[in-house]
């Protein structure tokens, strides 16, 4: 009666193949769609949170101008302006631009002051996909104001992911 080890080995092998196949069927599906470097709405919210902290962000005052339909995501004209008298007592201190789906949520930040005279700046940005672009302005009284634009991009900026 020395056949117990063989029996045990046989059942263990059966058990392992059965469990392995079961676990494997779970592991394959989700890994296919994972994209490592992409600013998701969550990272957008995190980047905004880093700037504003707990201060409420209100709609208005800020005007973000982007073409609604972009043919080439490599150079998208962007203009942001804020309603402000730009005096020593009341001015815009900085304007942050964020995006939703580029590899990084930050686009750029403008720092202004009363010497700027007008709270308005333009640049050209890259967009990797059709997405939402958000502008947040901080005024000298510490309040935050926001505006966002949804942009459709037909040719995305070249962003082959590095894995």
């Amino acid at each position, binding site marked *: 009666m020395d056949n117990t080890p063989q029996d045990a080995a046989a059942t263990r092998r059966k058990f392992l193949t059965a469990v392995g196949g079961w676990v494997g069927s779970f592991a394959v599906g989700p890994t296919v769609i994972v994209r490592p470097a992409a600013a998701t709405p969550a990272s957008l919210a995190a980047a905004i949170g880093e700037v504003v902290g707990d201060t409420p962000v209100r709609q208005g005052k800020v005007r973000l101008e982007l073409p609604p339909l972009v043919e080439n995501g490599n150079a998208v004209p962007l203009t942001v302006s804020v309603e402000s008298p730009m005096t020593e007592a009341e001015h815009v201190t900085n304007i942050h631009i964020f995006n939703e789906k580029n590899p990084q949520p930050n686009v750029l930040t*403008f*720092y202004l*002051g009363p010497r*700027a005279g007008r709270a308005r*700046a333009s*640049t050209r940005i890259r967009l990797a996909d059709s997405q939402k672009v958000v502008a947040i302005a901080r005024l000298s009284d510490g309040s935050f104001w926001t505006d966002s634009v949804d942009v459709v991009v037909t040719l995305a900026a070249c*962003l082959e992911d590095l894995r």
Partner: protein
Amino acid sequence: MARALINVPRKAQRGEVIEIKTLVAHVMETGYRRDNVGNPIPRDIICRFLCTYNGVEVFRAALFPAVAANPFLSFFTVATESGTLEFQWTDERGNTETATATVEVE
């Protein structure tokens, strides 16, 4: 580093708000791309821009890889006195490119 193009009005009234346009030649390589043999292209980004008017800061910007190649920036300032505007671009390796422009205030 690179060449810069500046557009500033030559003459302005005192107190007038003038527009300044700047353009600098730079690849703004994101670090997310590969070359034709599959090697990652190293990141090369201008991360800071500064504009001073007779030594006083009037405008500053922090740039990220999402800014297009050959960064273009346009902004405003109050023409307070005749003098020079100095522009400075700094990349992540610490190299700087500077340019100056003069404005005559009547």
